[in-house]
Structure formats: C-alpha cells, structure tokens
C-alpha cells in the first residue's frame, strides 16, 4: 500500500463541505416536517371507516414503500415538470427545482414509512379506550385527538425517530439529481483532487455526527413524552 494520504485537501475545500452540510440540514429539516404531517394523516386514513379513503392510503403506502427512492426522485425531477404547463415548468426550472424535487421525493417516501408506524401505534391502543371515549359522548375526531393520539404518540416516537435518521441518510440520494449536499460536495472534491478516500471519510464523519445528534435529541423527546406516564406493572 503506497497511497499517500493528504488530509490537507479537506481544509482547502472546507467551504464546499460546509456548504454541503448546510444544504443537507435544510433538505432534511424541511422534509422531516412535511413527511411527519403527511405520515400522520395517511396513517389515520389507513384506519378510516370509508373504504375508499382506506384504499387510497394503502395504495399510496404500498407503492412508495416498495419502489426505490432514487427512481421516485428521478420521477419527480424528470417526469413531473413534463406534465405541467410550460410557464410553470420554466418557472420551476429557474427556481432550484432539483431541491424542490428532492424534498418532494424524500417527504413522500418517508411519509409512507411513518404512516405505517402511526397505523401500528394507533392499533396498539386498546379498543376499549375508543369505545369508552365514544360512549361518554366524545365525537370520532375528539376521541382521536384527546384519547387515542396522545397515547399512540409514545409508542410511535421510537420508530418515527428511526425514519428521521433514515431520511437524513437518504438525503444523500439528492446528489443524483445534482443537489449540492454533502455527498455531492465530497464527490466534487474527489474529482478536483483525486482524494476520494479523504473526502468520503470527512463526509462519513459528518453523517455519523448528524445521526448521533438527532438520535440524542430524539431520546430526549422520548423521555419528555413518557414523563407523565404511570409506571405500568404487568
């Protein structure tokens, strides 16, 4: 092994890496917000009384869970603008469309996984609770909002946290549609300097610190959410 490591290139190109980190954080945080909202709505829809609503939500979840994210991103990036009127298409293309497409891709993909977690969380709540709430005169929405969801939230936080971590890691796929996030910048440094090893080490360390930070924050949220809970002795 006669490879000479040159870690100085990282310092030379630090601005690229920092710019990439900024984009990764923006991309991930916007997508996390959207996918959580979509995921909760779809998760509830999967348990709706109306069969048509249920069918729509199931089809959405199954389709997006079972296709590769990269194909979905290509679809939103290449195919979606073709279906839009020309003026809107050109407006999108001149307004950083690759970023928008990657947000759409990440949000929809992750929302279908979150929907599954939410559905499982709601189903884990004992049926008697729902029946009791309804029989005390609460409406269906009130039962959901005041009785079921607050309990389901505790069950659902750990799997949703996992999905957030996956989303951050998956945001690296945005490089395939030329969003200049960390992976993209690491590859750019590689092509400027042929120092792939050093560049990808730096990017990997950045991802690991990001995921560690998020899982630390989420463990705090989890502790906060279960604070009011009584200790249940089985």
């Amino acid at each position, binding site marked *: 092994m006669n490879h000479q490591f040159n870690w100085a290139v990282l310092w030379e190109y630090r601005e690229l890496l920092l710019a990439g980190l900024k984009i990764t954080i923006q991309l991930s945080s916007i997508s996390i917000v959207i996918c959580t909202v979509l995921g909760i709505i779809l998760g509830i829809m999967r348990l709706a009384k109306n069969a048509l609503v249920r069918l729509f939500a199931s089809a959405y979840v*199954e*389709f997006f869970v*079972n*296709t590769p994210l990269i*194909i979905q991103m290509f679809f939103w990036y*290449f195919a979606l603008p073709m279906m839009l009127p020309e003026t809107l298409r050109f407006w999108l293309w001149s307004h950083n469309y690759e970023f928008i497409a990657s947000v759409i891709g990440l949000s929809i993909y992750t929302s279908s996984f979150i929907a599954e977690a939410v559905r499982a969380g709601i189903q884990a709540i004992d049926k008697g609770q729902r029946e009791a709430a309804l029989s005390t005169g609460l409406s269906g929405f009130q039962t959901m909002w005041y009785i079921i969801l607050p309990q389901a939230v505790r069950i659902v936080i750990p799997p949703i946290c996992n999905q957030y971590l996956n989303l951050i890691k998956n945001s690296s796929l945005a490089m395939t549609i030329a969003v200049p996030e960390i992976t993209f910048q690491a590859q750019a440094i590689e092509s400027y300097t042929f120092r792939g090893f050093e560049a990808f080490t730096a990017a*990997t360390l950045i*991802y690991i610190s990001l995921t560690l930070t998020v899982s630390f924050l989420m463990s705090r949220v989890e502790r906060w959410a279960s604070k009011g809970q009584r200790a249940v002795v089985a």
Partner: protein
Amino acid sequence: MSIDVITRNIPYLYEGFKVTLQLAAISITLSFVFGTIFGMARLSKYRIISIPATIYIEIVRGTPLIMVIFWIFFLIPVLIGHPIQPFPSAVAAFTVFTSAYIAEIVRSGIKSIPVGQVEAALSSGLTYWQTMRYIVLPQALTKMIPPLVGQFISLFKDTSLAYIIGVMELTRRATIVNNREYKSFEIFTFVALVYFVVCFTMSKYARYLEKKRRVGEDHRTEEKYTPANA
C-alpha cells in the same frame, strides 16, 4: 403517453433487470453469512470480539449507503493497487452495508431465546457451538425470517444505487433510455412498477410468514409467566 417507448426498450431493460437480480441475490447471500457472524460476535462475552463488531455495526448503520458504495469504490483500488470492476465493487458495498443490518436482526433473534434454554443446553454437556447450532439458531431463525425478508426487500431497492458507480443494472439502463428517448414519465413509471411488483410480492410473502408464525405460537400450550402462576 406512448407505450412503444417501453416495448421497444424492453429487451434492453430486461438485461438490466437480470443484473439487478444477480446483484441482489449475491449480496443477500453474502450479507446473511457475514451478518450472522457479526450478530453473534456482538453478543460474544469476549470484549475483544464484541467491541469491534459493535463499532462496525454502529458506524455502518449511521452512514448512508451511497457513502459505503463510494468508500468501497475508492478504498479497494488503494489497497490492491489497481482499479476494480463496478459490479464486484457494488456487491462488496451492499454486503458491507446489509451485513450490519442483518447482524442486528440476528442479535435480537438470538436474544429473544430465553437464557434458561442456553443454560440448560450447556449444563447438559453441549458445547457453545452445539448449543448455537442445535438449540438457539433454529429457534431464532424462525423469528428472524420476517425481518430478513424485509431486509431483502430493502436490499433489492438499494441495488438501484449501483447506478452511481456505473453498474449496468435496471436503474442505469432506465436513465440511459431516458437520455436517449426523453420520455421520462413512461420510463420511470414503468421501472417503478417493475421494482414494485418484485418488492410487493416479497412483502406480501413476509406478511404471510409472519401470520403463520403467530398462529403457530398461539397454538403452543407452553405456560406463560404471569404474576398469577409465579
């Protein structure tokens, strides 16, 4: 909408689909072997074995797959002194990545077996390997099958990332057709459906297995621990 862009390119895309299947099949086999080893290593009582296994698993699980693909693609040439083909490089990357996830499945599968069984097996004179081979792994395996199928579905979807280093699999061929024909909607919808059919079938099968396992468990008459019979 024009369907003929698909029909004209089906032979070309089919070649890619075969590569996708090969990538997935080879990688899952290797990942299963290495994942089982790493999963057992993480549970080892010798720290010199368990700590490296834990570090490996946690680092890989905190890293995006694209990173692992780039790593292998740039690291192996440095180690062996000459560049390698994209296909073996992709297989190596998927194996390194998926092994870490399978290791966690194996670990929780093994941990779900009551300690009493291991103790009983060891005290009846079986060695560690015999206990693993005849007592723990056969039981753990049935519990592991649904998550393993899930992992295989993920891997099948993930093979699309081999596109980045130039493996001529389904996704790469789809982008080539797209660049040539400029019919993005038809092409990507079609390719998405191909992936969907394979993955959806597998996930239905996983759910069927899961259901079967649960049914099997319910029929067992084994007494469960409750405060009443303690």
